[in-house]
């Protein structure tokens, strides 16, 4: 049984973790002569949000192994092996701060967080200790978050492109219904979607948050469908929640397009509904087992090989965070190799002066207008649509350009949700 296999790798991981922990107490000179640079995954490893943290941490480890195999990181001619350390922040801001302290004590050079609810306590500490950090939530950026980068995903900025595409292919749609869970992910997503719908002439007929502890989605879907929407946006809900929502939409007789950032469980969605029902649904994440992935994700070294290796080491654990932490590391690696240093101020200056490649190609630093700081690496982003049961890239758009064209609406919708940097408590 494959079970046994899994146990072995986990046990190895456990031993590795013990080694890391005991290394914490020991001076690093005791270890082998290879130079080592530490990067840290500061994410929930226990509790229900471990479903983000663990694949992210595992992805970072797979990436580090791949890099080390091919010679590590080259800093001014010296080779460094990357070592991933991790800390369970439990998605509680205060615990995450404890992790940051542990990382500083361990001389971690680059920290990755999921962002959102767990960043808030970190900011002062990060500035005090010049702790270079990456987040997956661009909305964590603010004028004083000097050492925080959003180098990969600028959630939710691609949603505008999605509505634009939808308007292009479906000129007759009029109404939209939205729902998401009541947390910072849900709120930033829906705020941006609303702006998108405003910008492209949709009327929002139903708009509600649900609590994270919701288990049965039938009542939520029936109250959404009561408004008879042409389009339904269930974004950004957790993968398994999205599946239940889609299933409810299907059983309650909805016919129309569904919008969701990831559609991570598309095969299950198709199994539970039908190919015809899912046809045309719009998302923003290409498959990594797509034969053309290396061409579209050209800022990521060997995306297809990385995916294969991950599946081998951690079968059935893949989700989008699995490549997003490595994506953050790719950007950092480019920066370090160009700057020739790990020192945060010099590295940051060099990164700003030579914008690194983003996972989907060329990119630039951006964010001043909305977040007061140019720390988001924005490039193009793909729009994918479901065709015959699996997603295909249908268009690649410029996120920043869409924002430039509609920034007044975005700001208005962000203000409503108190998401602007000057509104933060």
């Amino acid at each position, binding site marked *: 049984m494959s079970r046994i296999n899994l146990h072995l790798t986990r046990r190895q991981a456990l031993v590795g973790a013990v080694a890391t922990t005991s290394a914490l107490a020991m001076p690093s000179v005791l270890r082998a002569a290879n130079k080592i640079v530490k990067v840290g995954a500061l994410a929930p490893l226990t509790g229900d949000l471990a479903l983000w943290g663990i694949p992210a941490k595992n992805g970072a480890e797979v990436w580090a192994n791949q890099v080390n195999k091919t010679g590590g990181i080259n800093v001014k001619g010296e080779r460094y092996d990357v070592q991933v350390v991790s800390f369970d922040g439990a998605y509680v801001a205060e615990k995450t701060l404890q992790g940051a302290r542990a990382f500083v004590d361990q001389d971690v050079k680059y920290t990755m967080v999921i962002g959102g609810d767990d960043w808030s306590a970190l900011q002062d500490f990060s500035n005090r200790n010049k702790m270079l950090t990456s987040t997956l939530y661009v909305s964590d950026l603010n004028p004083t978050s000097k050492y925080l980068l959003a180098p990969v995903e600028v959630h939710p900025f691609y949603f505008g492109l999605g509505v634009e595409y939808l308007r292009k292919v479906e000129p007759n749609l009029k109404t939209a219904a939205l729902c998401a869970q009541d947390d910072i992910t849900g709120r930033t997503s829906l705020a941006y979607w609303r702006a998108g719908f405003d910008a492209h002439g949709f009327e929002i007929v139903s708009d509600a948050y*649900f609590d994270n502890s919701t*288990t*049965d989605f039938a*009542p939520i879907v029936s109250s959404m469908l009561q408004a008879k929407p042409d389009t339904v946006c269930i974004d950004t809900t957790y993968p398994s929640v999205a599946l239940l929502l889609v299933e409810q939409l299907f059983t309650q007789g909805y016919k129309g397009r569904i919008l969701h950032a990831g559609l991570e469980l598309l095969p299950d969605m198709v199994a539970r509904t039908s190919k015809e029902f899912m046809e045309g649904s719009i998302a923003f994440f290409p498959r990594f087992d797509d034969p053309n992935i290396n061409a579209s994700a050209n800022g990521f070294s060997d995306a297809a090989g990385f995916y294969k290796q991950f599946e081998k080491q951690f079968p*059935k654990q893949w989700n989008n965070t699995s490549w997003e932490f490595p994506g953050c590391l790719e950007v950092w690696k480019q920066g370090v190799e160009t700057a020739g240093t790990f020192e945060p101020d010099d590295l940051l200056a060099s990164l700003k002066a030579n914008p690194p490649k983003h996972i989907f190609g060329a990119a630039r630093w951006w964010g001043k207008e909305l977040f007061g700081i140019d720390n988001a690496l924005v490039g193009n982003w793909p729009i994918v649509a479901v065709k015959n049961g699996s997603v295909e890239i249908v268009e690649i758009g410029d996120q920043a350009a869409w924002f430039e064209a509609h920034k007044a609406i975005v700001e208005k919708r962000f203000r409503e949700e108190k998401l602007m940097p000057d509104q933060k408590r």
Partner: protein
Amino acid sequence: MQFLVETVLNSAMASASTALVVVGLALIFGVMRIENFAHGELYMVGAYATWLFGTSFGAGYWVGFAAAILVTAVLGAAIEILLLRRLRNNPMGALIVTIGVLLILQTGAAWFFGINSNLLVDAPVSGVLSLGGFNMPWHRIVVIAAAVLILTALTVILRTTKFGWALRAVAQDKDAANLQGISIGRISMSAMALSAALAGAAGSLMAPIVRISPFMGQPVIITAFIVIILGGIGSMEGAIVAAVIYSTFFTFVSVYFDTTIANVAGLCLMLAVLIVKPSGLMGKAQKV
């Protein structure tokens, strides 16, 4: 109108599954005077067992359902024999032990089935009942029917069999029951197995509807404690009535407002009842 009917049916299903969970909790409190915090995790185990036996081994939903009941019953009996029996006079100690069991079961599920796995259980009766624009998946009706059946059977057992008589005797007065020759140990074990099996049955019935995860028991146990307080601790009739009241209230508030407001309103409803009747709707009055 159609929306109203749908919401009523959704409330009925929520009531049914909550009632199954809560009756087990009330039963175990009545007999053993223990608040079992791991009850939600037994519900979780029921859902996983249904997937493992029914879906993964391909034996079909009803085999999975039977397996879920069996597995949780054995687990419940084991918890009683190995742990709770040794702490019979120490309710706070027993409470901590159930929290320990909760942590072990959650961690175990995450370890064996993976944190990110999306396990799907197919409903035994697929398809949707459609009546003039109104849609209701058949499985929701199956849940309601199954819960009514199980609860009726339970009532019959408790009212007519010797076991039921002994169980009620222990719940009323342990020492007197002991004098009557009733073995407290055997009754406690059976009650725990029965209570766990009820949670397992609920988890199994809900498996095709909810998301199966190691933490799926948490919202369930919180709801269950609220309901059990509403109904009056230890009163099974009270538990069922309260399950229906609370679930219906919650479902309606969540469709007309949102679920966060429904949570707050639910908590306030419980507080309001307690202020008027400090021992719940059907609980026995107690000394203050």
